[in-house]
């Protein structure tokens, strides 16, 4: 799926940058080090915004576009930070046939957050996930790990109200 650019302002700290520079220094001169650097960068910041990718580009001499290409190729890399409330709706087969697609669209609509991104204030992130292993409760979603099952489109408003 096409990745969405973030609208959340970058909140990186000098401490995080120091950690990132140490990671890059650790991998210096190592062949095939871009993946581990990017993975560790995501561990530090939680996602890989342009500010972080620019540091990696500057320090490694690899072009920013090449790094962005990698970041958008692998689903493990995130361009958006997790929201204060991270909403994950299961689009696995069982959930999907029971209507989780509609639930996801409804959440996206009500929060005005495109699927795969985070609200500009950083409060909500909305994403689709693969099977969560709770097919008996389909359709299922989690908000910060808390599981909601047997969802209907009509339930969305009440559930979201708890977090607003």
């Amino acid at each position, binding site marked *: *799926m*096409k*990745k969405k*650019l973030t609208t959340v302002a970058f909140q990186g700290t000098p401490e995080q940058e120091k950690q990132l520079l140490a990671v890059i220094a650790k991998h210096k001169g190592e062949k095939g080090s871009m993946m581990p650097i990017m993975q560790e960068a995501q561990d530090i910041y939680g996602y890989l915004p*342009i500010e972080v*990718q*620019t540091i990696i580009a*500057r320090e490694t001499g*690899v*072009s*920013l*576009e*090449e*790094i*962005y*290409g990698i970041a*958008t*190729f*692998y*689903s493990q890399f995130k361009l958006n930070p997790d929201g204060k409330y991270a909403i994950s709706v299961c689009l696995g087969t069982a959930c999907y046939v029971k209507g989780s697609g509609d639930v996801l669209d409804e959440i996206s609509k009500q929060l005005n957050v495109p699927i795969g991104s985070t609200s500009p204030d950083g409060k909500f992130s909305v994403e689709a996930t693969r099977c969560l292993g709770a097919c008996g409760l389909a359709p299922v979603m989690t908000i910060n790990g808390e599981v909601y099952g047997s969802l209907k489109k009509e339930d969305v408003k009440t559930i979201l109200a708890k977090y607003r």
Partner: protein
Amino acid sequence: MDMIKVIINGKEYSVEKGSTVLEAAKAANIDIPTLCYLKDINEIGACRLCLVEVAEMRGPALGPWRMVTACVYPCTEGMQIKTNTPKITASRKMNLELLLSNHDKKCLSCVRSTNCELQTLCREYGVDQSTFTGTTNHYEIDNKTPIIRDNNKCVLCRRCVATCAKVQGIGVIGANNRGFDTFIGSQFEKALAETSCINCGQCIVSCPVGALYERDDTDKVFEAIADPNKHVFICTAPSVRAQIGECFGYEPGTDTEGKMVAALKRLGFDGVYDMNLTADLTIVEEATELIGRVQNNGVLPMITSCSPGWIKFCEHYFPEFTENLSTCKSPQQMFGAVVKTYYAQKMGWDPKDIFFVSAIPCTAKKFEVGRPDQSAAGVPDVDVAITTREVGRMIQKAGINFRALADEKFDDPFDIGSGAGAIFGATGGVMEAALRYAAEIILGKKLEKVDFPEVRGTEGIKTASYKLGDLTVNVAVASSTGKARELLNKVKNGELDVQFIEIMACPGGCVNGGGQPIQPAKVRMSTDLRAVRAAVLYKDDADETLRKSQDNLAVKKLYDEFFGKPNSHKAHEVLHTSYIKRGLYK
């Protein structure tokens, strides 16, 4: 050289060990179709059009027949290869249909129609519609720079990506996203104008289809010609004459200067001028600047400034070197500036009524005309820069039978160019022209031998050392910005001590510029365009009696009547410019 035996379509051939199946077939005069393949630049087996059937020896017996991609599969001893079976044809057809299923088939008016590698293959394989229907991608056309990207026609071959990253050392384009969402673009969905792209256009000449092309400015030129109140002039860069013939079916490396001039006159320009003249003017200014820097402890090494792709590269990637750039405008800008100051004054014209067009092998020149500090007469020195391809299209559109034209000569008073000016279009040419001038000035006597073969040739980086009297001059030449990066890093690290550097952004120099006629991968596989095109310019030079810029009487006249002497105050006002420290991603 180790050779191995292979059997291609039932016939035995001896091929170089390590050859790919594609190379072996080529040596046997068999073309295997390719789309993503670009010799030495992009060999990734992505498009699957070069599929062939091979069977390799497994011990004493022949192994099973398999389909492999010829462009990356190495030949082995005793290998059997079939390049043209019904099975192969069917698979190539299928791949073409799959490509077409997500391709904007607006071929009728496509700028690459009849010169499109996809179209050629579709014709050969009888494919015109895809039997696959379903979702197609729709992309906005990125047209904010002289380089226009239309991803609706992109086949994701990655030839542009490889050229940008590997040849030019830039890498502002790449494949983003994955699977069906994959598209070629820049970081964080930025338009090319927001990146550190240098407008060199090497991506355009690498593109097999119509996904990349230059901004077409020919309508502006036709309109100006039709305006009775405008004096419309065109000057042609050294390498346009060496390549424009390719637009009309001539082999690469055919000099068609006379026909080009005749055709431009028939288009209705009020004057058709030779840019070799301002190449000479550039040499006089630039070499004088160099001698001045050497004598007055100025910033060294001095680096040439004729190539606007290189200038923008320097501003983005080596801003610490902008003081090293010669302040001379490029020959194109000098020409416009001379016409709009000196000539306007002489003829009693308002510079605003002059429309000055330059014909160039370059897409970066389209960016250069809009740069600040390029308006000596208060109006832009050059109004429009059009590529060799655009000149070709104008001539075609006007219905001029190029091949039937008799040779004509450039117009007075800007018709004289030296051999030194002619070789400006090839890597090492500006260096050689400058040496012909500087050597004579430093030695204080006429130069017997004007050839400096050490700086000629298609090598990416060349260095030479010359002893001129008591003075030793070390010089270096680089072509392609990838090689320029290598060279400048050496200068930065103190590994290389030189006084004068020539850099051209395109590999091989302007003859291989981003605005030149596009030759398909098939031709680029067997012909080194850099060498055959440059040979035209070196022949021009050798055939000239006028070999040195300083002997050009038209240049002398400019100094006598207008500038006084080289690097005079007036010359600085009109012929020199300034640079910007851009830095990366700006």
